């Protein structure tokens, strides 16, 4: 039997909920929302599942909790009057003393309201309390777990966590039936995000990874990191375009959305060559017309070598006018490419703008009439360098709207850290989707942090493989 946690996303992570009668450790740093999650578990248990509950608080005053929880619209005093809830303020030493006494306070309280769930906020002090034999408090926690099991109570034991004491696996994790961890993280040094992870849960399969949650007016809301592809968005499959990386397509519910602008945020150490290569090659194979902006590092020679890997001869395609290039640097191009390269070096922003609007729009429009789809790829750092941040911020939203109206799918390479927090948050908001790739230690990761469907993913390891598309998400 599973017990709903009162948080829909968490129930999904736990494949239905917490196995009934389990003792779970809920740990997190100050302010991560432990008390809120604990009370939500009790409140929803009472209101939605008719399971009365008791909240034990050692450090906080109950009236403070009544007041804090009002901000979520939870009227705890009302539930107390109806004998469905108790918010008990008690010192840990009496709590433990009463817990082990026959017909003690604990037993009385449980019986009085026919209690099914309890929350203890928090067990952090237990470690320092001597038990009856004068030994350390670890045995107390073990006793506590056995008692709540005896009563068949589904329990959350809240544990304060400072990032300092992470040396070894804490004792609580061994005796608990499950462990849920809340964290607050700096994300890529740009965004702060709250994440929830279930690191252990006996008797149920779990959806691994760090799931993002928010504290809202209605309590905790959890967004699942990975979601099963097939259950959604089947209807608009023909509006999905493949990336050439099967696992990424799965995360995106079939592929990138046609007409959407995707940002690939990479840090300087990350190797994005194969990510871009796979997507570019896939688009060529699908018969798209492709417009790309060459950067200072991405030369035609480089692109040619990359496409050779994927079995694509860009020389021929350029001559057939299926590929178009915007060139900011005065570099030589192979013979026969004249019609597909636009030289814009030295062009003023104003003229560049006009070029984009007149030339590119004309091209795209013409192809649309012939039912050819467009794909565009560019490295935003080139625009930043050549045209300035102000230009980027001014024109990006306009280009996004243009892409959407012509069904042109766009992949933009950017380094959020490099462009600064303000520009990054603007670009993130304006893009329809964001893939982030970064290196941590000796591993590279990729994560979908935004998509037009609202799907986001957990971070995946990026593994190099010997055959096309040369990368795989693990």
């Amino acid at each position: 039997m599973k017990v709903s946690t009162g948080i829909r996303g968490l129930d999904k992570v736990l494949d239905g909920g917490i196995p009934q009668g389990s003792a779970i450790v809920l740990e997190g740093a100050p302010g991560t929302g432990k008390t809120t999650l604990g009370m939500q578990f009790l409140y929803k248990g009472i209101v939605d599942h008719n399971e009365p509950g008791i909240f034990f608080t050692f450090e906080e005053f109950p009236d403070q909790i009544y007041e804090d929880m009002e901000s979520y619209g939870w009227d705890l005093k009302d539930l107390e009057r109806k004998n469905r809830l108790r918010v008990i303020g008690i010192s840990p030493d009496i709590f433990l003393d009463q817990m082990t006494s026959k017909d003690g306070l604990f037993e009385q309280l449980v019986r009085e309201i026919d209690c099914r769930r309890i929350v203890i906020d928090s067990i952090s002090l237990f470690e320092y309390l001597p038990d009856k034999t004068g030994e350390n408090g670890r045995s107390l926690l073990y006793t506590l777990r056995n008692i709540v099991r005896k009563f068949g109570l589904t329990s959350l034991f809240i544990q304060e966590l400072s990032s300092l004491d992470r040396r070894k696996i804490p004792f609580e994790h061994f005796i608990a039936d499950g462990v849920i961890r809340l964290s607050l993280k700096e994300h890529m040094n740009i965004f702060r995000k709250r994440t929830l992870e279930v690191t252990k849960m006996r008797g149920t399969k779990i959806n691994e990874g760090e799931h993002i949650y928010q504290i809202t007016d209605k309590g905790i809301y959890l967004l699942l990191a990975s979601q099963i592809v097939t259950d959604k968005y089947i209807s608009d499959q023909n509006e999905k375009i493949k990336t050439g990386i099967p696992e990424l397509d799965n995360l995106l519910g079939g592929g990138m959305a046609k007409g959407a602008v995707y940002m690939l945020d990479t840090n300087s150490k990350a190797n994005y060559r194969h990510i871009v290569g796979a997507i570019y090659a896939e688009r060529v194979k699908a018969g798209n017309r492709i417009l790309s902006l060459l950067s200072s590092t991405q030369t035609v020679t480089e692109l040619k070598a990359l496409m050779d890997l994927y079995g694509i001869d860009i020389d021929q395609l350029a001559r057939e006018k299926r590929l178009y290039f915007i060139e900011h640097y005065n570099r030589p191009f192979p013979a026969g490419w004249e019609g597909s390269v636009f030289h814009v070096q030295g062009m003023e922003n104003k003229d560049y703008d006009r070029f984009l609007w007149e030339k590119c729009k004309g091209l795209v429009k013409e192809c649309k009439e012939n039912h050819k789809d467009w794909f565009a790829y560019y490295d935003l750092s080139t625009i930043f360098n050549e045209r300035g941040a102000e230009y980027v911020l001014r024109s990006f939203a306009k280009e996004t709207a243009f892409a959407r109206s012509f069904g042109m799918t766009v992949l933009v390479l950017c380094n959020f850290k490099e462009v600064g927090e303000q520009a990054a948050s603007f670009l993130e908001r304006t893009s329809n989707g964001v893939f982030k790739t970064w290196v941590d230690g000796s591993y590279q990761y990729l994560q979908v942090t935004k998509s037009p469907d609202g799907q986001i993913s957990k971070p995946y390891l990026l593994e190099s493989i010997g055959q096309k598309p040369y990368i795989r998400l693990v």
Partner: protein
Amino acid sequence: MVKREHLSLEMECLTLFQSNPYLFETIQGLEKRLGRKMSDLEPILESLTAQGILQRTGEGAMAYFRYKEPAVIAEFSFTSELEPL
């Protein structure tokens, strides 16, 4: 007879227990919660217990106090529950 500072400390205790009807505390615990000396709290808790406002359970250091809900109010809120208007 009753000292003024006793009165205010009595009010403090009373308010604490009234706004936290499910507070179960020892004298030691109350000392921490209220920031008042145990020796000052002792006579007040005695008196509130004698008046039937608080209930004392147990002996010695592990004896704890809790608020005793006045019977009338309990009944009142019970009937108002039965007939919501």
